[in-house]
């Protein structure tokens, strides 16, 4: 039971806003010591686990490729693509953005869009503009609702799309962890099984967006 002190360390550490990496390292040490291991034994357990799972870091081999493509204007291209959706109602527009985000995340392009790169400068203003075109000037509450929905769309698209991507850290970590417990799974299987979930998430959120669109139109009296 004392090993749960590690969990407490994580909670307290994050609440106090310490650097997450240090918090996690400290929590791992606390857990090990609470389990009765000597500090040297904890260090050895760290080392063994790190060495066994280092292939997770091998995924960063793609960093130079991402650098080259971004240097050639990948984010600007993404912006141009999203900008083509001008003049569409907010529901279909955000559905289009959801599809874009999910598909690009499934292909591994997780940094092509995001809250800082696309939602704040583009998607949220375009969504607000789409609603205003339908129902006239927005009051503060509705404006915040639209922005929140745009952010939520980005989150959902990224989260359910990136699990389909083979080299994402979470998939590789799952594979590695199961392997150390004796269960050998092909990463491809994990990725393929993420596809039904992604489709369900898309359908559910698309339905929410259409209902949102309808609610806004009714609220605006159009």
């Amino acid at each position, binding site marked *: 039971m004392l090993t749960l002190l590690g969990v407490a360390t994580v909670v307290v550490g994050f609440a106090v806003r310490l650097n997450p990496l240090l918090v996690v390292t400290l929590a791992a040490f606390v857990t090990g010591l609470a389990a009765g291991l000597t500090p040297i034994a904890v*260090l050895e357990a760290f*080392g063994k686990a790190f060495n066994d799972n280092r292939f997770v870091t091998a995924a960063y081999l793609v960093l130079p490729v991402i650098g080259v*493509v971004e240097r050639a204007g*990948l984010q600007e291209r993404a912006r141009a693509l999203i900008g083509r959706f001008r003049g569409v109602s907010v529901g279909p527009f955000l559905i289009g953005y959801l599809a874009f985000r999910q598909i690009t995340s499934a292909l591994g392009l997780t940094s092509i869009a995001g809250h800082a790169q696309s939602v704040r400068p583009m998607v949220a203003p375009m969504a607000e503009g789409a609603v205003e075109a339908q129902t006239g000037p927005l009051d503060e509450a509705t404006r915040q609702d639209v922005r929140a929905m745009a952010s939520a769309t980005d989150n959902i698209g990224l989260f359910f799309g990136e699990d389909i991507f083979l080299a994402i850290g979470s998939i590789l970590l799952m594979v590695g962890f199961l392997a150390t417990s004796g269960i050998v799974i092909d990463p491809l299987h994990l990725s393929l099984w993420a596809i039904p979930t992604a489709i369900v998430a898309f359908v559910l959120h698309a339905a929410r967006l259409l209902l949102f669109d309808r609610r806004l139109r009714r609220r605006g009296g159009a």
Partner: protein
Amino acid sequence: MIKLSAVYILAGLVFAAFAVLSALDRNNSRRFGNAAFWGLVALSFLAGDALGDLGNGVLVLGLAGIAGFGLLGRGQPATTSPEDRKALAERFGDRLCSSRPSPCPSSSLSGCWS
């Protein structure tokens, strides 16, 4: 299938290159922190099995310490400006998205697991 050990050597060499390039980057005030970090990662890939458990444990502490205590930084490399990128984006079009190759480590990794 490409063996996992070959991927590790490739990764080790690439990360060692990152370390060297970081150390040479005079625009970065924290270049030695960067170099140390990537150097340790490269060491893990190239010699991880030879280091033993305790050695790897110390390596992990080193990585966590360098990153956790804020010894990493960013330089200002000579790269394209936002306007240049806009022009390049128009030139290359959607080939930017489709030209990105499928990540090499994962296909060799999945081969090794089967």
